[in-house]
């Protein structure tokens, strides 16, 4: 994709422009590596959002899958895979938040048998 004419104004040549852009993107990728507290906060948010589902099966699945996914990704060490996993987790959190609302709008009046006998 050719660089936008406006962006090139401040740079000497197109080559330098692309080098700067690349360095900037690498720096931002480095900045995107989540800290331990960010990862833990994402984990807690996912579990909390999962609890809000009205459907018994989806609720249990979200909890179980979150725990298993974070546990299996615990050993990831290189930056790129960690950031990719974190970004994926954030996306899943957004999906879960939206779907929790949608499921609650159409939840049946009578709950699943599994929930009733637990009470």
């Amino acid at each position, binding site marked *: 994709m050719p660089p936008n004419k406006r962006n090139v104004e401040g740079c000497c040549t197109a080559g330098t422009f692309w080098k700067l852009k690349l360095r900037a993107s690498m720096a931002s990728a480095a900045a995107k590596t989540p800290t331990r507290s960010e990862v833990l906060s994402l984990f807690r948010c996912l579990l909390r959002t999962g609890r809000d589902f009205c459907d018994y*099966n989806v609720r*249990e699945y979200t909890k*179980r899958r979150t725990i298993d996914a974070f546990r299996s990704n615990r050993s990831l060490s290189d930056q790129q895979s960690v950031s990719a996993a974190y970004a994926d987790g954030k996306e899943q959190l957004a*999906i879960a938040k939206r*779907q929790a*609302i949608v499921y609650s709008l159409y939840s049946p009046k*009578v709950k699943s048998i*599994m929930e009733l006998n637990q009470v």
Partner: protein
Amino acid sequence: MASKFLASPIRRFLAKAHRPSASWPRHLSTAAAAAEAASSVYEDPDAGIVMKGVRISGRPLYLDMQATSPLDPRVLDAMLPFYTARYGNPHSRTHLYGWESDLAVESARAQVAALVNASPKEIVFTSGATECNNISIKGVMHFYRDKKRHVITTQTEHKCVLDSCRHLQQEGFDITYLKVGSDGIIDLEQLRSSIRPDTGLVSVMAVNNEIGVIQPMEEIGKICKEFNVPFHTDAAQALGKIPVDVDKWNVSLMSLSGHKVYGPKGVGALYLRRRPRIRVEPQMNGGGQERGIRSGTVPTPLVVGMGAACELAMKEMEYDHKRVSSLQERLLNGIKEKIDGVVVNGSLEKRYPGNLNISFAYVEGESLLMGLKEVAVSSGSACTSASLEPSYVLRALGVEEDMAHTSIRYGIGRFTTEEEIDRAVELTVKQVEKLREMSPLYEMVKEGIDIKSIQWAQH
């Protein structure tokens, strides 16, 4: 910043929604209200559900994954934009609505193709696996009707395959129905000897929907390649559950279904090999959509849902498989520990673990099912459950009539929990013990009398 403003109202809303008494006010549209009033379903948070004269305290736990599977929330999330704002027809070439729909359909096609190791150009979207089977069997044979007059299939195929073959038989084609062994697997030597010079198609389903056995697909593919016969498989139950590879299996046609892989109902995909090209006569004529093989507007939301479901299946296949295997063991061992006379129909080794078809001896099938109303299971497949006779699949396995009548099919899936399995075991065991206590046949067996040696008096 905006998320902070949204967070507290959303939290409050969700907290309100989670309370069982404060459900979203149900202002039903007139059509829906009339339908609910007309149906004899009575739902009340305290009294439970009363339907068809049966009262249950809550919604049953779902163990019927072979009939259909619940929609994964991530799939619903992918589909909803195409029901709300992006509602264009993918075949409209002149505006944004059409372009974005077309883009979505093509990316869904690529997702489905990736799961079966095919090229996106080889995938045709249809309305479901039944339509795919019809196109494959009738379409291929009609196209090659001058040279090829013979079809080979098995006795345990899905009803739509058997019905299409019966239709071809009425038109004058020859059909060979291969027998299966008592474990549900076909005999490869019998297949090899049945192939004639005018065999136009071999159709064997990958994973059986009633008993869950996996046929030896690679070996069948090799035999078909040797004799240069097109190989069709109904992979509706196999997709997303076992690794499906069109090159390893050497299939020319494959039927896929959306609602068995946690996708929406009403959509399926047909895989048609391009090298060497397999030609079919289209069953739906019209504007030439889907390369002329299946005309009609491609339903964007459904197709996007199927694509999302296939992508999820690829990511989650290993995790789901491990989990479902352990749940199956838990179910089978739980039942076998408490009661005897339990027979698993079909091979236990060559089987997809999520499908467990068990027969209970000395128990009547209908009463067992009626007693298990808190567990949603089925006996036989949904297609054959309307009639009273036992399933033809079990009869093909050589299961005796009385055992075939008491067969129950448990379907375990991605969303099944350990507690549900334990509850299902508990309910099944309780019901079977209750029925056996009432059964005079069981009393005789316990005393040591051999049932088969009894001379029943004729009145």
